[in-house]
């Protein structure tokens, strides 16, 4: 059993995987650990910074999202604020994958934001970032709606995403961001 987990992670180039509750301390620990890992691997400074930035935004995005998710104890399929966090290193890219439950009625808005970001080229992302930075209202949590745009800018690649239906009320949202290693 353990060996198959190991082989599976190795095959998928997974450095790190976590399933569970996401706290601010956990985010700090993961960032610290991954920073050491990147340093230890002697990763190029530019790549390291990009990967670190993308990790910060992806992990904090989940943290803020779960913090706002109202969990109803009667919903047996989602009885806690758990998420999936994965970081991997492939031949050409680092990748950061997050997965968390989302209310179905919020999918349309999120999907249109993701589509908008993915349809932008580099310059359009810059313009969009400036516009939202300048006009966007800050939520109570201090998230400015800039996260996805920033991830896309730093990543330089399209964001991967998926909404997997879980129940009438919830879906499982996954987001994948890549950072090229060259």
């Amino acid at each position: 059993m353990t060996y198959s987990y190991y082989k599976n992670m190795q095959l998928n180039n997974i450095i790190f995987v976590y399933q569970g509750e996401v706290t601010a301390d956990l985010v700090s620990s993961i960032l610290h650990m991954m920073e050491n890992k990147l340093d230890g691997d002697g990763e190029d400074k530019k790549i390291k910074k990009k990967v670190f930035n993308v990790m910060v935004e992806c992990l904090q995005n989940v943290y803020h999202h779960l913090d706002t998710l109202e969990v109803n104890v009667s919903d047996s399929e989602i009885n806690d604020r758990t998420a999936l966090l994965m970081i991997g290193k492939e031949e050409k890219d680092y990748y950061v994958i997050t997965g968390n439950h989302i209310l179905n009625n919020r999918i349309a808005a999120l999907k249109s934001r993701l589509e908008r970001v993915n349809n932008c080229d580099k310059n359009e992302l810059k313009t969009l970032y400036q516009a939202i930075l300048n006009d966007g209202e800050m939520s109570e949590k201090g998230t400015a709606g800039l996260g996805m745009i920033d991830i896309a800018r730093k990543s330089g690649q399209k964001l991967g995403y998926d909404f997997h239906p879980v129940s009438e009320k919830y879906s499982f949202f996954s987001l994948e961001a890549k950072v090229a290693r060259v």
Partner: protein
Amino acid sequence: MRNLIIEPTAKTPKVILNSDINVFEISGRSIPEDSVGFYRRILDWVDEYAKSPNPKTNFKFQLEYFNTSSSKCLLDLFRKLEKLSKSGHDVVITWCYDADDEDMEETGEDYKALLEVPFELVSV
């Protein structure tokens, strides 16, 4: 007025706001979950300082990393400095970035484009 000195942590920057020696600096990492909470003290300090500012204010930023929730707080801070500048005071914002950190350079350009206050980009 009282100086505001905040020691750095893994997620928050070092802050030196000392009007006695005319040093205004924020450096290091700014990646807290609660950026609004962290920056409130700084914004309040600048409000107080703006009541009787020094003849010249050079506010230096040298950030290694910052998250998007900090980016909004930084803009709020810049807006306060812009206001001070527009009211006739000598204010300069210096944005220092690591010579090979093009993302940090680009973010500096983003701010510069949005602001009407002397904003210098300095590669270090």
